[in-house]
């Protein structure tokens, strides 16, 4: 059918709550290319997290259609196409670091020796070799988030869904983590959908940035980020980077005027 990783067609989402219905997303249509890094950015409450959950089949849209690699979102979830990373690392606190990374493999029935070697490999990828036998609470916030990225990648999902994964980290850790994610993507070729509040983060990481309007969330503009790849530390000092940041910022300000 298509070689898009993810296709949303005329997707709307209305939540029925005790206080009435909330129109979270309206008429979202977008295609995500295979191997692409796309960011969703917008004011709080614009439904960007909801959109991520619709792709991951954690929510079912009220209207419209979500296709993932030519399948329904539900089938894709059952086929374990998604790796999820949340704002909080969501590590299981009773499991040691390695056991946390092994969790999805365990659920998927991978034999123990294979699990252990895969966990080691993944922890090496996020630069946490030597921390296998630590408990999550013994790690810093940034390290915990790296474990959760290792866990999300452990079963080689084709799509990584990241919901403000670096939102709780300090600026320096955040920048380091951004480099790591890009490196991981280069190595694995995973498609990444990335929700963020941060304009520079979106500009630095993405091939495209989808700017969303306030509720009901619509895609106001999709901005191509024309920065050379691989993105490096100096990219942040590149005038083209500032131009991209400005473009996203102006797009976001466009609908602030209506408020």
């Amino acid at each position, binding site marked *: 059918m298509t070689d898009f990783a993810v296709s949303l067609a005329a997707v709307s989402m209305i939540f029925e709550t005790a206080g009435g219905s909330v129109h979270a997303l309206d008429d979202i249509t977008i295609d995500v290319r295979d191997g692409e890094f796309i960011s969703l950015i917008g004011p709080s409450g614009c439904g960007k997290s909801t959109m991520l*959950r619709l792709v*991951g*089949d*954690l929510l079912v849209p009220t209207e419209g259609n979500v296709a993932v690699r030519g399948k329904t979102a539900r089938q894709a*979830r*059952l*086929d*374990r196409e*998604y*790796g*999820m990373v*949340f704002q*909080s690392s*969501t590590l*299981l*606190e*009773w*499991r040691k670091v390695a056991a946390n990374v092994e*969790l*999805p493999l*365990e*659920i*998927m029935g991978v034999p123990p020796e294979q699990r252990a070697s895969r966990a080691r490999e993944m922890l090496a990828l996020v630069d946490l070799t030597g921390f296998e036998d630590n*408990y999550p*609470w013994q790690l810093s916030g940034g390290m915990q988030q790296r474990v959760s990225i290792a866990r999300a990648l452990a079963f080689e999902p084709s799509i990584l*869904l990241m919901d403000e994964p670096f939102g709780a980290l300090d600026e320096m850790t955040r920048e380091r983590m951004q480099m790591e994610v890009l490196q991981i993507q280069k190595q694995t070729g995973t498609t990444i959908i990335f929700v963020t509040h941060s304009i520079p983060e979106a500009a630095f990481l993405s091939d495209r940035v989808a700017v969303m309007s306030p509720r009901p969330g619509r895609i106001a503009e999709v901005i191509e980020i024309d920065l050379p790849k691989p993105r490096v530390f100096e990219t942040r000092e590149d005038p083209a980077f500032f131009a991209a940041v400005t473009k996203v910022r102006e797009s976001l300000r466009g609908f602030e005027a209506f408020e």
Partner: protein
Amino acid sequence: MIARLRRWIPAIGVFVAFIALWEAVVRVFDIQGFILPAPTAILAAFPGAWPEVWPASIGTFLSALGGLALGTTLGILAAAGAARWPMVRDGAMPLAITANSTPIIVLAPVANAWFGLLSPWSTIVVVAVLVFFPVMINMVRGLLSTSASELELMASYAANKRTLLWKLQLPGAMPYMFSALKVAAALSLIGAIVKEYFGGSQARLGQYLTLKAGNFQFEEVWTAILLASAFGIGLYLLITLVERRYMGWHVSVRAAKV
């Protein structure tokens, strides 16, 4: 090791001081034995009381333990059911909470009629019923304490309900289970002894206590009281030990270890 011993010194000091004060108060004010016997007098009564009070304590303790095991097992199973099916939860939880707020121990005389005066089952069942509700309520709370993102994570792995229970909900409920167990352990001994006040085998602590108090043999009464507390404390320590062994990851145990 030495540092750990040092931490115990205040507790041991207070304990010793308490016993010494007790002894002194009894002697100075010449308090009658039936009101409060001196620690030395209780100690002296132990050898004579032992052949009777020890088997009675063991008998009561085993009934309490049996009831604790039965009630805890059923409580956990019921909680798993309630956590799994909202229908069960909505139906059973109000009853459980109501039952938990009533003094169930009033069932004791009825249990004698149901299971027979001398059957250990009358005690075991009373204890089990007593223990069931706090365990169930705590476990339901524990099983449902999973965060939204933990549930989403498991959904993204297409985990089924059983996996969810074993990999996420049960381990997450462990802290709740241990606090429930500590409450239940104390409750089980109280329940067993009080139940035995209402009748049952002579070779049980409840009957031993009523009998000796009736005969004004208060030194013997106190040997029974001390043995009952010893069993209670032992049970509590055992649970705490298991908790520390298997829950080193939890914040409460982490803090206790420092």
